[in-house]
């Protein structure tokens, strides 16, 4: 077996001493694979990504990275009206000298990367005027011009509509399978992880992790435990393709119905007087 793209061992991090966000984490991410990180809010997914890209230093344990990393943050606001091309050019930061400006060659590389995603026509358009999916692709293009080998994506499909979710997921698959990039992503959608990920890590608790091949780790039982909300894994055949996915089983219990009941205002009023 080849060397892992990222190896994490005994990793621990806290923002405030004594309050570990994550601890004793051991994981190995194979090169060229898609690795999904799942966990409820506040369990340390983004912290872990920041540890992987080196924005945070481990308090305990180590992170070993073999390859050039590009980070794709959650859909973000840019304070200035940069064009899509300006944004992609920034991926060349390491190639452009400290006191230099992007050269024609840099611009050509950026345009080629945009073209790869079918967005060369939009090069001059302000980044913030693009759709959420297009913005995500611009940032992918930025990772390509940085000649990254490992893509770290923070919730690449959050805040996107269904069509853009499909577009972005499809491109993530292509970047891994065709370009051989290693992809690490966090997601709140277990069905996205099941659809595209090769490996998955469930962040169950402070020092409680489940990792392995996505199809094996992503079980009804584990996910129901992870989120505290019931999920059903279902399989069906669509246009000759076998598809497995997750559907949340929405509760129809007492909470929902009681919330809809009109309070007895007359009685409440009487009780106060």
């Amino acid at each position: 077996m080849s060397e892992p793209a990222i190896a994490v061992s005994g990793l621990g991090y806290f923002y405030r001493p004594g309050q570990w966000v994550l601890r004793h984490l051991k994981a190995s991410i194979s090169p060229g694979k898609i690795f999904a990180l799942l966990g409820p809010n506040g369990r340390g997914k983004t912290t872990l990504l920041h540890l992987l890209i080196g924005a945070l230093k481990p308090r305990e344990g180590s992170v070993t990275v073999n390859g050039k990393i590009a980070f794709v943050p959650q859909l973000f606001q840019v304070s200035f009206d940069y064009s899509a091309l300006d944004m992609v050019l920034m991926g060349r930061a390491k190639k452009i000298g400290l006191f230099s400006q992007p050269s024609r060659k840099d611009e050509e590389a950026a345009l080629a990367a945009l073209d790869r995603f079918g967005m060369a026509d939009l090069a001059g358009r302000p980044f913030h005027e693009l759709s959420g999916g297009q913005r995500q692709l611009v940032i992918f293009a930025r990772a390509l011009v940085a000649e990254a080998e490992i893509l770290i994506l923070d919730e690449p499909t959050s805040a996107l509509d269904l069509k853009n979710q499909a577009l972005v997921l499809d491109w993530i698959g292509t970047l891994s399978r065709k370009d051989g990039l290693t992809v690490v992503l966090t997601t709140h959608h277990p069905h996205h992880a099941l659809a595209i990920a090769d490996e998955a890590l469930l962040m169950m608790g402070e020092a409680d992790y489940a990792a392995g091949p996505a199809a094996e780790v992503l079980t009804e039982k584990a996910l129901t435990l992870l989120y505290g909300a019931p999920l059903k894994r279902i399989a069906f055949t669509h246009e000759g393709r076998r598809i497995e996915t997750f559907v949340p089983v929405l509760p129809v219990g007492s909470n929902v119905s009681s919330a809809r009941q009109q309070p007895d205002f007359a009685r409440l009023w009487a009780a106060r007087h």
Partner: protein
Amino acid sequence: MTFAIPSPLRANRGHGADLLPLLLFAALILLMLFSLMLGRYPVPFLDVARIVFTTFPINAKGDYTNAPWVVVEIVRMPRILLTALCGMGLALSGAAMQGVFRNPLVGPEIAGVTSGASLGGVVAIMLSWPSLGVTGLAFGSGLLALAAAFSLAKLAGRASTLGLVLSGVIVGGFCGALVGLVQTLADPMVKLPSIVYWLLGSFAGATYEKVALVAGVTLVAGTLLLGLRWRINLLSLGETDAQALGVNVELLRWGLMSLVALLVAVQVSVSGGVGWVGLIVPHLARMLVGPDHSRLLPAAAFLGGIYLLGMDDIARSLTEQEIPIGLLTSVVGTPIFALLFWKTQSKGWARE
């Protein structure tokens, strides 16, 4: 906070946009020649051009009986050079600071340098130091204010953008209070008027010594700032993203802020407080060339020179007695800013 200026003039990456800084530079030179004509003693344009292009002012063995030569090269030239240089420095600083703080609503004043430099200047006037002493102490205390703000941010832990803003506000507020204290203690007949007048800002006391100081600082700090201008794009993406792109965020931010502080301190030291230039001019430049700092900084620099020189021309020729330029830039700057604000609001600033 987002603040985008939708502009019909936003240039595409083309030759037109690359030419614009050159055009602005030419406009600045023309305005300088025009400004040399202005004043109580009229000198026709052709005479101005002949004097400027045939004699060298600094160590020229000029004919001091030749009135037009004295007016152009000795009286007006230092002031015009000083104003243009300060305008360029302030606009460059403002454009850089807005990028560093990812906020187009900040000006170069934010680092506390302006107040620090003001304090030094006021103290020097209080001590009856000569003009160059006022300049020197103002410059030194401006840098000291920056160092104080930096150490404060460092003490507070991670030198985040917010930390720097807060330390700047603290140092600025402290220096501002001390300036007030000095003013209360100043002799109201002799010292106070000159302190107030100096604080309001004026280029009236321009000399070639001051020009040399500002030119030296602007040449070094401005050139470095221009060299780093594309990197400001990277910083403006935010800490994590910039870091992931391979930028040494802290070092770059401190470097840029130090350069800005040099430019601002030298401006305050020669001309007192001149507000709003560093805030307004980058916005105007952004409307012309777009937000990319590669193109924004050169355009802002030349536009800053034009703007401040235009203001100074008005300041010294509108009324019989000269208007302090700091007052004028504020009186003109605030409505322009309000207009920009209103325009960006009505044209869909809201970007969820």
